[in-house]
């Protein structure tokens, strides 16, 4: 995993109810690494104050992507009652001058280069990677259209959307209206358009279902999953390690199964974004990669897996098994 950057908070504002926008900069003012629009950074969150172990959360970068003098992120506070682990709560305590460790930007949601037009479909805090896309399209004059769903009186970056996209932006505050507009817009896009969606899992499921009904092939539909969305529990499989075979039941991760068996595996985010728990794979009946860390090439090579989120898939004989090399 790449070395983390030590940054300080340059600017912190409450951008919308429950959303805090932070700018992170190098303490010396040096330029930070450039990134592809739609990239995210992973912020390390120390243990303590009720957090049993360190955490790491992924946040989309919303600002300037070329030679940036700061990384801008917007953090939605996810309370414990909604499945939060305390990471976003800690992020909300940060003020100007606070120090943070940040892993360099990674791209898992880039605009498709040969696309002739881009349709951006966001909801709530899912606006963040789309702002970054829109900023790039505005700069290059790429045809773009934005349909965004936000609760009335809520939602960060709505002013950015309008400023960058002007008439190409439609903001909607109720789901029924959104669905009607979505159905129309999905049927009015010139050939060559790609669509990008980011929002809660149920929202993106609706986008994918509606796009499929409207005849969109999967290759034109791009999704950015939030780390905070609970992953499906998955099917059971077995893992071989040094000659032992362990069961990994549904609802238990490969990482947890190895830890229970007394194996020490480095981990940080436990949600597939930080890269810490990467394991070498000797052989596998099939791999279900669910992380945002490995590149498509890594995934295609099939020789590594992120233990915190990914699982074995059944092979031709119906057996699900993978051999890891520690």
């Amino acid at each position, binding site marked *: 995993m790449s070395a983390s950057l030590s940054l300080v908070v340059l600017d912190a504002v409450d951008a919308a109810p429950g959303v805090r926008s932070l700018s992170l900069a190098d303490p010396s003012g040096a330029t930070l690494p450039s990134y592809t629009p739609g990239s995210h950074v992973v912020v390390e969150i120390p243990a303590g104050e009720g957090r049993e172990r360190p955490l790491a959360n992924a946040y989309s970068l919303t600002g300037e992507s070329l030679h940036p003098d700061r990384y801008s992120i917007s953090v939605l506070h996810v309370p414990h009652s909604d499945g939060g682990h305390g990471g976003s709560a800690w992020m909300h305590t940060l003020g100007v001058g606070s120090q943070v460790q940040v892993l360099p930007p990674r791209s898992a949601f880039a605009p498709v280069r*040969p*696309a*002739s037009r881009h349709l951006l479909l966001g909801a709530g805090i899912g606006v963040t990677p789309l702002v970054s896309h829109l900023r790039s399209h505005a700069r290059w004059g790429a045809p773009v259209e934005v349909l965004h769903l936000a609760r009335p009186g809520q939602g960060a970056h709505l002013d950015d959307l309008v400023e960058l996209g002007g008439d190409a932006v439609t903001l909607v505050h109720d789901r029924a209206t959104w669905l009607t507009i979505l159905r129309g817009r*999905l*049927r*009015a*896009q*010139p*050939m*060559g*358009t790609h669509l990008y969606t980011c929002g809660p899992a149920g929202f993106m499921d609706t986008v994918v279902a509606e796009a*499929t009904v*409207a*005849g*969109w*092939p*999967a*290759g*034109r539909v791009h999704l950015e999953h939030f780390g905070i969305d609970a992953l499906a529990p998955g099917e059971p499989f077995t893992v071989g390690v040094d000659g032992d075979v362990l069961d990994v039941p549904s609802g238990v991760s490969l990482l947890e199964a190895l830890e229970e068996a007394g194996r020490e595996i480095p981990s940080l985010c436990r949600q597939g974004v930080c890269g810490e728990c990467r394991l070498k794979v000797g052989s596998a009946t099939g791999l279900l990669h669910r992380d945002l860390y490995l590149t498509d090439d890594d995934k295609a090579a099939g020789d590594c897996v992120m233990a915190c989120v990914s699982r074995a898939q059944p092979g031709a004989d119906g057996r699900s098994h993978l051999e890891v090399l520690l």
Partner: protein
Amino acid sequence: MSAPAPPHYTSVPAWAREPVVEPVDHAGTSHSVLSVGPDGAAAAAHWLDALGCAGARVRHHDCADAAQAVDALETDLADALVGHRVLVAGSAQACLAVRAAAVRAGLSDAELRVAVTTVDERSVWCVHCHATNSAAAELEDVLACAGCGRTLLVYPHVSRRTGAHLGFMVDAEGPA
């Protein structure tokens, strides 16, 4: 397929090595059906039946040659919307030429279906004189370039943007 394609054949679609009829993609909301030549027209008839039964929106073009099909497709795609599908029936050479026009218009492979009637003829682009030869040739055959007379190897690489195979002098590395 009779034999799996060698690894360096990745740009040659399986249907340019052996005839195949792909099924209609009923996920499409409208379709352009292009048939090239009498064999192509016969192959496209099944598609038209299947689409007709489903009540799909179809634009059908019965074309004499690949150039006519490319023209018709370019006109169709100029105002096509996402959800549109393209079906091409004819020789592999014609299907590759029409696919190239589709790729240039932003279509993805998932939005294209083919019915290939024969794979005997190929377009071969000469890297030396830039002539495009049309010839009965198998992959890795040699042929004389109509433009410059060099003996060309039909290399197993097809351009997505022209539909032609790459041809270069077979003994290019030997002494002149």
